């Protein structure tokens, strides 16, 4: 394997890994707040889920970048 390919694959790993960490940090705080809100009013569940899953887009973007890098390598 040539060094370029290796670097691309490491880049792909960082793209999805770092994006995952970012999503995790965002979701941890939203999740805690959403659970609190749902405990007070179960009707908040749906809205809580919507807010909770918003940061997932970050990791999806990371995933797409990783795939593009992987296919280029």
């Amino acid at each position: 394997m040539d060094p370029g390919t290796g670097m691309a694959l490491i880049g792909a790993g960082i793209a999805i890994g770092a994006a995952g960490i970012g999503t995790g940090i965002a979701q941890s705080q939203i999740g805690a707040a959403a659970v609190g809100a749902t405990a007070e009013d179960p009707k908040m569940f749906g809205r809580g889920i919507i807010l909770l899953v918003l940061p997932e887009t970050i990791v999806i973007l990371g995933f797409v970048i990783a795939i593009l890098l992987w296919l280029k390598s």
Partner: protein
Amino acid sequence: MLRPEGMTRAVVVGSIESLDGTIGCLYELGILHLIDFTKQDDEFKLGQPLQEASDASQKLLKLRAMIRALEIEGHRPKETLQVKEINGKIEQAMVTLDLNTSTKAEARQKIQSLIREKEAEIKSLDPVRTFGIPVEYYDGYENLAVFVGICKQDPEPALRAKVKDFELFANAKKSEIAIALFVKNEWRLEASRILTDHGFQEVKLPKLEGNPEKIMLRLSSEISDLEKDLKRIEADIDSVRKQFADFIIASEEHLAIEVLKAETPLRIATSANSFVIDGWIPTARMEEIRTALDEKCCGLSFVETVPREGEEDTPVKLKNPQPVKPFEFFINLVSTPKYEEIDPTIILFITFPIFFGFMIGDLGFGAGLMALGAVIRLKLKGFPDLYKLGAIILAGGLIASIFGLFVFAEAFGVPFHPPPDNLEEASWESVVNIPIHPMLEKMRNVLEMLALSFVAGWLHLTIGFVFGFFNNIHHSKKHALAKIAWLLILLGIFTELMAMGGNATETSKFMNSTVLAPLMPGSTVMIAGIKTAYSALALIAIGIPSLLLTEGGQALTEVIGLFTNLISYARLAAIAVGKGAMAFAFNSMLFGMIFESGPGVVGVVIAILGIVTLVVCQLFFVFFLGALSAGIQAMRLNYVEFFLKFFEGGGTDFKPLSYERKYSVATTK
């Protein structure tokens, strides 16, 4: 479908004598959503509860107290009781129950508190038990201070060093020391300080006389006598419980319904001689209520429709075919749509199982999910939400099985046939030859999976904007036009994605040559090293100024959002590939352990261990967690990407005057 059930504003009016009958009739029909009367004037006032209200509520209150006393809150009678029987027996039963339950429950409470009191006395006497000093001697001195309690460390050395004239009784127990300290009044403060330093906790002695040891024995025997009494009373209460539990629960239900009906006039307008009940009735059932009132009230009350006045808070009753109904569960989780809004349940019915099935895409796991859904449907009829969820899992499992069988050709993460470039890979071929070859291999054609996901996303978002257009067209043409601008931008972004895909995937090739052909995604220009379709540029160039004109500058920031919305559908491919890879990893690690475990007992043990690990891993990580994440993601794509394009919600649920009888049966008059 798409629209909730049509509602008609109607008033039921009649002479005051027929109020009782009319209310009964409306509750039985269960189709009138009452609008509370609030504007009182000289003519019309809020009604008075029906005569039977006060008597019924008193009985209900007593019955509920009995239910608590007998601890039968969770009791579910096996047989139903006729209302006639309840009404006939209730007076007599209430007297019997009052005698048997109320007095006994009171006695039980008294005995329980006595036992608790005596146990507390024993506990407080315990520290001084071994000192041999009568209890009354710990109190009532003029010149002496007495400390009784528990210390964490022995205070004697410190006391000896600093306090004169004291007498200390101590008894070490595990990590604590029980003490009784007698000091002269002048040393009281110093002694108290030393004791506090040694973790002293005071024990309040009961006001009793005599030797603590003997008192404790006496108290213990009193407790055991009381416990015998308690047992006897419990047995009596138990027999009452057995005899009356069914009757009490059924009567409680019946009386609760009676009170509900009797208090309904408090929500309606009445004058000296008439009443007016204002509400909403499903248009299709107007005739039903008309006939019923004619029959029951002999022409003394009748129903009239009222024309709509502008935008009203019309209650919403979703109207969907039976198979689609369970998916209303997802709508209820967020919010009820407004009456004027489109009800998107049917789209959820189509997209949720497809998204879910695509992500799971495995015959084995799909069949497992179907079985799980079927079990929930059969066994959990009493839990409405779970029951609906059962149907959703069943539908998702079915589509997952279809994807697994015809598209991905695999079961439990193992392909039907080994891939052509790796004939050594484990497959079902060695067990059974299934004559189906994969149309698409999850882990080898990731780009194809991505392209398919984007097509699904484009279609889904397009429907969202179309719904948005129709939701807005009646009250804001400008906002409706903005949805068309969004549609153009979305089409531009999608065309660009497909142009980038070009001939690299079958999906983009197909889309470019069919649906997108008029847009000529093939004619491109290189911008910043990216192949860009002219038509995509044109669509976005038309869409953005249109947005500026309709929704203003702020909307421009959301264009990037729309791009991420479409990219967001990549999760369909991501979960499908990730789940497939996980199943493949467990299989390839553990198949070696199982099939190449070697001969002899050790080999068999290793093989069994391998099988158990494989089953546990596949079941937990791939089946449950996979289904959970696929479910959540399929739900999210609907809630976030789809709903936010059109859905406002905040509608009022249709809650007609009605009741549910589970344990009592109304006799028809």
